[in-house]
Each structure stands twice: as C-alpha cells, then as structure tokens.
C-alpha cells in the first residue's frame, strides 16, 4: 500500500510540471485562437463583443486576405515541388553513387538548415540588392559590365514572391535530402544488384526501386512541406520584406500578425489563424488521400 502511494507520487511529480506548462502555453492559447475569432476585440481593452462569424465574413470579402492566400499557395506549391525534386535527386546521388567526398557534400548541403532565418534573409537581401548585390552584378557581367536597369528582386511586386521562394528552397533542400537519404539507406543493396543484372540502368533503378520503397517517407514529408512552408514563408517575409512592397509579398501568417498587432484587431487576426489552420489540415488530408498506395515491404 505504501509502495503504491510512493509510485503514484513519483508519477505525479514527473508528469505534472510538463502537463501544466503544456496546458498554459499550448492548449489554452490554441483554444483562445478559436474562441477569440468569434469576438471583436482590440486586445488592450477589456471590452469584447461577441460577433459570431462576422470576422469570417469580413475575411472572405477582403482582397488582402485573397492576396495572402494566393501568395501562400504559390509558395507552398513552388517550394514543395522544386525542393522535393532537388532533395530527392541529390539524396539518390549521395546514397547510390560511389563518389569521393560524399560526406563533405552532405555536410555542406545541410548548412542552410542550421542558420537562423534572419541570417538567411540578410544574406539574400544582400544577394538581391539592386545596386551592388551579388545577383545583379553577376547579370551585369553578361550585359557588358554595366547595369543601367537593375532588377528589383525584392522591390518589384511581381518578382518579390519568387525571390522569396528561391531563398526558401535554398534553406530547405538539405533538410529533406538528409531525410530521404536516411530512408534510402534502408533499402537492401541486393535489390539494386539484381536489377542491375537484369539490365536496369540508373534511372530505371531510381523509378522502379528507390521511389516506391521510400513512398511512405515521401508522404510523411509532404505533410511537413505544407506545415513548414506556411511557417517558413512567414519567417522569411517578416525578415526580408515585411510584406512589402505595399503588401505584395504578404502570406497567411504575416497577414495575421499584421492585423493582430499593427491594426490591433485581435479577433479578426485570430479568424485568419483559424482559416489557415483549417486550410493546412484539409490540404494535408487531401494530399494524404491522393498519394495513398499499397505499402511495399522489403
């Protein structure tokens, strides 16, 4: 009996701090996001008015929301496809080919992932600088040394979102590459050997063995891609352009942050948060269903 009490005491002592902090800083704020989306509230005053779904109807009528929506989807699609393409090819090269300095390349490719997004944003701001940035001076080399009409990589409303996409791809390739490498390393060598005996070349081996066998891992990373692209696009936009020029690069969460802080309309901001949450959840579920294949054992 005494032993049992000691056991319960030990369990309670171990899990209580974690559970309490988890409730205070994660569960309550998450519930708050949903609850506050139903109120009109400036935040600093105690005055809250329940407005039902009015925030959402304002949202659907807002051009700014559609622009943020469009930019976010564009970034999710472009960054996911390009990153996936590069990551899986480089992972296949580094696991399948016998090359010198394999470890060196892996170490280098992962570097962007350990840098702060602020640092990467600063680096890319320098690259995109219209006057003495690396990119424009590189282009000037082909134009005969002078560059009279510099490209405004971050200053032009049409280009800015693609400039951000490039920075995001640069940051993400190494991370996904290492993930794919880890699951490719588990594929037994004998499969490739027998395929090679039957005359299958590199590309055939890749499509017939590698891709199907890491399919589960690819599906998991698709969910990561959605969640992290929504998140990363916010971090990059916040540090690189602050939604500029004139809101041309605003994305889901930057729009939410801006409405909540600059305009002090917390209720409306949280309605955006709810929409983003539902959207990412639905997108992940759809992708998950579409990519479902029979699992292959090896």
């Amino acid at each position, binding site marked *: 009996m005494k032993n049992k009490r*000691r*056991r319960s005491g*030990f*369990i309670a*002592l*171990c*899990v209580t701090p*974690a559970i309490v*902090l*988890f409730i205070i*800083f*994660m569960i*309550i704020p*998450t519930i*708050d*996001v949903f609850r506050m989306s139903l109120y009109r509230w400036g*935040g*600093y005053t105690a005055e809250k008015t329940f407005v039902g779904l009015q925030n959402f109807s304002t949202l659907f009528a807002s051009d700014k929301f559609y622009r943020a929506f469009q930019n976010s989807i564009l970034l999710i699609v472009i960054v996911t496809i390009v990153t996936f393409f590069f990551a899986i090819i*480089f992972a296949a090269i580094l696991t399948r*080919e016998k*090359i010198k300095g394999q470890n060196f390349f*892996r170490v*280098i490719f*992962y*570097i962007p992932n*350990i*840098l*702060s*997004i*602020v*640092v990467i*944003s*600063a*680096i*890319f701001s*320098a690259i995109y600088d219209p006057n*003495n940035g*690396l990119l424009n*001076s590189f282009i000037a080399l082909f134009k005969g040394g002078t560059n009279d009409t510099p490209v405004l990589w971050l200053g032009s409303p049409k280009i800015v979102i693609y400039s951000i996409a490039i920075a995001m791809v*640069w940051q993400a390739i*190494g*991370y996904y590459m*290492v*993930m794919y490498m*880890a699951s490719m390393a588990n594929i037994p060598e004998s499969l490739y050997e027998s395929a090679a005996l*039957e*005359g*299958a*070349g*590199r590309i*055939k081996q890749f499509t017939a063995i590698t891709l199907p066998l890491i399919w589960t891992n690819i599906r998991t990373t698709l969910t990561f891609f959605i*969640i992290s692209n929504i*998140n990363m696009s916010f*971090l990059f936009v916040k*540090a690189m352009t602050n939604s500029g020029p004139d809101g041309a690069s605003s994305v889901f*969460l930057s729009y*939410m942050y801006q409405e909540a*802080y600059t305009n002090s309309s917390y209720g409306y901001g*949280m309605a955006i*948060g709810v929409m983003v949450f539902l959207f990412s959840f639905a997108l992940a579920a759809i992708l998950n269903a579409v990519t479902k294949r029979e699992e292959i054992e090896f």
Partner: protein
Amino acid sequence: MGNKEEKRLQGSPKLVKFFIYLVLALLAVTIIVPVAWVFVASIKENSEFYGSPWVLPKGIHYQNFIDAWQKADMGSYMLNSVIVTALALALLIIIALPAAYVLARFKFLGRGFWNTMFMAGLFINVNYIVVPIFLMLNNGDIWLRQTFGGTFFLNNLFILALVYASTALPFTIYLLSGYFKSLAKDYEEAAYVDGAGYFYTMVRIIMPMAKPSIVTVILFNFLSFWNEYIISMTLLTKAELKTLPVGLMNLMAAQRSAVQYGQMYAGLVIVMLPTLILYMCVQKKLTQGMTIGGLKG
C-alpha cells in the same frame, strides 16, 4: 532492349560521373559562396561596399566587429541569447525528461490521453499561438500593475525561456519517449530488486543510458532557441533585452537608412559563428538524429 540501354549507360560512365560531380559542385557552390561572402564582407571597410561586390577586401578591418559588438549592442544581445538559450534548455531537460520517462514506461490513469495530447501538440505551430500567448502575459501584467504596481511577465528573459521550453515539450517528449519505449523492462526490475527507489532508478540507471538521445534533443533545441525570433520579438519589447536574431533584424533595418554595411555583416558573423562551430563539431550526430527527430518541420 535492356542490353542496349545498359550499353548506352555503361558506354559513357565517365561522362555520367562528370555530370554528377558537376551538379554536386554547383549546389555546393551556391551554398558556400553566399556564406563565405558574408565572412569576407564583414572585414571590408564601408567605402569598399560601393564597388563590385566580388572584389576581395583590401585589408582586415576589425573595427566592424568592435562597432557591432559595442555600438550596435550585439555584445549584450549575445549575453541575452546565451541566458535565454541556456535557461530554456535547462528547463526543458528538467521538465521533459522525467515526463517522457513516466509517459513511456509507467501505466497510470490518463497515460493514453496525455500521450495523444502531446502527439497532437506536435502539429501546433508556435507562430499561430504567439498572439494569444502575448495577450495572456500582457493581461497578467495589467492585473499585476493594478494590484501590486509592477510588471513581471513581459520583458522577462526567464518567461521567454519558459515559453521556449514549453513549446518544445511535444517534440522533445515524442523523441525521448520513443527511446525509452525501446528499452527492456529488465533494467528497472533489477534495480527495484536491489532496493533502489523510483527516483534513484530514473536518475542513476535510465538517464545515463539515454545520453545519446538527450544530446540529440539538446542539439535540435539549441538551434531552434538560438535562431528563434518571432516569440522573442513579441515578448521582449525593451531594447536592452533583445536576443541576437532580433538585434540583427534591427541592424538590418538600420543599415537601410544609415548605410552601415560592415557593421551588419559583422553582426551576421556573430550570429552565425556559434551555430556553425557547433555544427562542424557534431554534424554527424545531428544528421543521424534527423532520422529519429525528423518530425521537426
């Protein structure tokens, strides 16, 4: 048909190899050049920035680092970052380790529920909930000001560390309990037979075995705490309390108006260097840890 293809591919293995190396080298260059360029730019004098960006510096201009450290306050931001990161890591380990152990290895009422809750927590993005967290702390401060005449929650490095640790709990518990679940029950049984208590068993027998997982957890969380800036920017509004990435953002903004290029690049190096050095020391562990910790988006 298959033979033909094989012949074609085998016929030019040198060309294929060359192409592979070329592609690898290209990606390596696009990663190394911008990072190396920042290091080079950080020792250039301000006047050198008006020419071509590809020109190497004339000499080593240390002054940039001194300016960044003192004038731009990167020194005190660095101290803030060190304090917050260290505190958050310590809190996280003290809180998450016992919780992960008990959730993984003890049967008790509510175990399944909390395991599911922490799993669900993996999908809560901190950037969604930063606004409610800010409001909660702000309301706390308003209440404190009215009753005691002081504030506590906002502009407090300890609270920031606590928020970091709390929001890292789901990932950390997920990773650690994955390891604890894989251990055989015999370890504890043997310890209990020898008369060891629960606490002694956990600290003296289980934790030393979990060392590799703990190191992985510390590495990942070090990087995310050190590099984080949205929560830090929101919860710390006083200039003297800023962390390094937020200070760097200020420096970037200042650079646009006051053209202090050298200082900004020196600031970038100051922020990058600790993570780069750590990475070079433990890169193997980090990329290996990715396989188990892959859920971190």
